[in-house]
């Protein structure tokens, strides 16, 4: 009786349903997981590249900012000196 049940149409429908559920999960995981792994590898590689790039660039940026700070200081000094000179000559 019980053996007959396993071959009944109801059992076949339920088995196919179960099979479809597992198949869906399997296909979805097989599709998504490698994509995540691939993306993760890519991002990791890009991060390493970016890290190297920043290691090169940050000192450059730092020195640029220093140079520009010096230039601005020199501009300020130039403006002050010019102001005092013009003031001195105007008051002569």
């Amino acid at each position, binding site marked *: 009786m019980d053996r007959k049940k396993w071959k009944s149409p109801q059992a076949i429908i339920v088995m196919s*349903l179960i099979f479809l559920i597992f198949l869906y999960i399997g296909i979805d995981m097989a599709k998504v997981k490698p994509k995540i792994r691939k*993306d993760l590898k890519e991002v990791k590689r*890009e991060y390493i590249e*970016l890290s190297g*790039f920043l290691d090169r660039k940050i000192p450059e*940026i730092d020195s640029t900012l220093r140079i520009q700070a010096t*230039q601005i200081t020199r501009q300020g000094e130039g403006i002050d000196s010019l102001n005092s000179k013009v003031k001195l000559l105007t008051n002569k």
Partner: protein
Amino acid sequence: MAAIPIDKFNLNRFWEKTPTALKYVLIFAIFLITAYFLFSKRMDDNHLGELKQMKVGINATYELINNFDEFRGEQDSYNKEVLKYLNNLHALVEDLNATTNRKLDMILSAGGKNSQNIIEKILLLNESFERLSKAYQPDIAKPNLDNNKVNKNYQYDPQIIPVD
């Protein structure tokens, strides 16, 4: 091949004829797919979203650095222009001062002749210094970084030698 009587479909009878073990497996499969949709798939989607965001962040950093390189070039040339402008202006003031002194020497060596003419010249020189003071001070005090103000306002004179 057995046919299912759909017109007289009865869920109780359907379950009765399904093996018990299979019922448990089906329930387990339903739980599994529900959990998969609730947690695992959502987590995977979040992971993908995070990775996408990270890529955007990396590209934004590269863009920022490139923009900084452009800014560095522009700012550097602007600063050099301002410094050159200030040096030339300084040279101009020095030049005017030297001219004034020369003229004063000439006036003094004239020995009191043409005194009215001399006074007019002195007044004229004072006026030019005042004008110079008024004309250049406001612009120098507020340099505008956006509009290349130096290039607009300043006409470079190669005859004027900058003073160190």
